[in-house]
């Protein structure tokens, strides 16, 4: 983990300044831009670790499944926070929307998980598209309020429409059909109690999302997102259409968060108001910040650390786990994340800039 790139700090000069010197020498710039998107060894290790964790830790599949879902959720937040710089306090809106869509679809239409997942993704993407116009204007505070408001509205809706969603009791009696792998003859994997099918299912989705998102953030589109994160005015003045890009990334992130929610609902066979709760939005922020923003894999590392910590502390004081979560947040921010993940700098005197 030691040479993981840190939040926002790309190993190379940012693209904006690189393109400024493009006229002088085009080949080094092209090479450096290519190097920027090259596969690094730890990425390959990470991708290899995903199936290995399924093989080597069969008894932990339930926990691993939860970790993978949280990781997926955090990756989605990273796309809008780490790459596009939108601070959201209501990302659970998409998570919950996906969860309820998947659960309702399985209950009322058909129990096939993959079709359900596709429907949930499409629905969350539509929600993302619809709400993205709300985040285009205003300051950080306005965006915080609007995202929080959207999540609260959905929470109220799920609470009040009890004939559809079961209200405060949650949506019970969701029975998932067996998993059928498309385009093959493999079929009939039930979601059993051990959770191994569920974990494999989640892992495949996670791997696909990671791969696609990696392509996305290393494409010119992803680079332009970082440009507008760093300086919106300058990005607009070199001819990037800022609103269109924000709408696109918000929709995509919404779709992924919806997928994470759908996976949760499908693998647990349950959806409750909890998925819209403020805690969810706050937790996913924490997960992402622990793992580091702006390099896509922060969500995975953050989710592992967060879930392990959660299990550890919750086993010790189940009721007051939130206190330690809060303390962790406060200390993390006060010390600063950069220093927090580098214990060897703790006792070094900080040089004043």
């Amino acid at each position: 983990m030691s040479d993981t790139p840190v939040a926002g700090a790309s190993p190379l000069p940012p693209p904006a300044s690189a393109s400024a010197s493009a006229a002088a020498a085009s080949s080094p710039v092209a090479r450096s831009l290519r190097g920027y998107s090259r596969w690094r060894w730890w990425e390959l290790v990470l991708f290899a670790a995903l199936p290995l964790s399924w093989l080597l830790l069969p008894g932990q599949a339930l926990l691993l499944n939860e970790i993978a879902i949280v990781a997926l959720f955090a990756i989605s937040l990273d796309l809008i926070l780490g790459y596009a710089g939108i601070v959201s306090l209501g990302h659970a809106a998409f998570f919950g929307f996906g969860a309820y869509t998947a659960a309702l679809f399985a209950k009322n239409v058909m129990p096939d998980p993959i079709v359900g997942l596709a429907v949930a993704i499409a629905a969350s993407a539509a929600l993302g598209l619809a709400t993205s116009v709300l985040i285009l204007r205003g300051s950080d505070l306005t965006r915080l309020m609007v995202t929080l408001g959207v999540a609260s509205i959905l929470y109220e809706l799920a609470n009040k429409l009890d004939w559809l969603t079961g209200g405060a009791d949650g949506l019970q009696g969701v029975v998932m059909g067996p998993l059928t792998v498309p385009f093959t003859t493999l079929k009939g994997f039930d979601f059993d109690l051990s959770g191994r099918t569920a974990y494999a299912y989640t892992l495949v989705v996670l791997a696909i999302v990671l791969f696609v998102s990696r392509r996305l953030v290393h494409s010119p589109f992803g680079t332009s997102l970082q440009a507008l994160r760093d300086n919106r005015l300058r990005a607009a003045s070199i001819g990037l259409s800022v609103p269109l890009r924000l709408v696109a990334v918000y929709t995509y992130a919404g779709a992924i968060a919806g997928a994470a929610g759908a996976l949760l609902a499908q693998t647990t066979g349950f959806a409750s108001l909890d998925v819209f709760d403020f805690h969810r939005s706050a937790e996913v922020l924490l997960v992402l910040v622990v793992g580091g923003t702006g390099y896509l894999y922060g969500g995975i590392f953050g989710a592992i650390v967060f879930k392990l910590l959660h299990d550890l502390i919750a086993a010790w004081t189940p009721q007051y786990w939130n206190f330690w979560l809060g303390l962790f947040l406060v200390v993390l921010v006060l010390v600063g994340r950069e220093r927090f993940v580098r214990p060897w700098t703790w006792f070094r005197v900080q040089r004043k800039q």
Partner: protein
Amino acid sequence: MTLLFDGIAYGMLLFILAVGLAVTLGLMNFINLAHGAFAMAGGYITVLLMNRLGVPFLACLPIAFLGTALLGALLERTLYRPMYSRPHLDQVLFSIGLVFMAVTAVDYVVGSMQQNIHLPDWLQGRLPIEAVGIGKYRLFIVVTCALLTIALQWVLSRTRFGSRLRASVDDPRVAGGLGLDVNRIFLLTFAVGSGLAGLGGALGAEVLGLDPTFPLKFMIYFLIVVSVGGTTTITGPLLAALLLGIADVAGKYYVPKLGAFIVYTLMIAILVWRPQGLFARASAR
């Protein structure tokens, strides 16, 4: 009519609760989600003093104010000050952490059940004025909050401290360059803001209900008041708070099915229409 009056009382209460937040946000550009925790502290000080020690209600209010103000000053000096220059994301995380800690700490110390306040007799019941029942306690709230608002307005616009504060709001660097101790002004303002929140919490314990999840439940309301009202004036948040109070009470009365739905939708609509708040003047920043 009773409804309107209840709405006004509720709105005044929200204003007192949120005005400190408006100052923190406007003055220091600091997103403090933990503001509700101070209100909760004030409420619990009152409840504990009254129920355990038998202190009279009226004496509790200034104690709640002072206690919370001290707490605010302490936290400002130790924890908040390094956060002013941080990015908004850090401030959000930091204050969420504080909220979580406050909620669980209160849960641990006092217990998670709802706390009740026994009002003195002269505040109970209703005044029948022209066939409109007006709760005595509601009237008390409205009068107290109106007096506080006038006092605040006077301090801000007429006193030396007020002009210093306004100078620091407009440009902290220039204010510092003119020899104002901006840090001390921040400290005092933060303390007074938390104190007012504590007072609001004490006054509102009867109306809003008091349990450990108070800061989370009302966080969005405070933020609505501030973001809709804008942070540059006092009248903006006041009008926003009154609007919110009336809309919420009326909405819950006429269409209980929709509940808080109306308020959130209204807020989003207003913020999309005017991102800087309804009553804000064009901001320099």
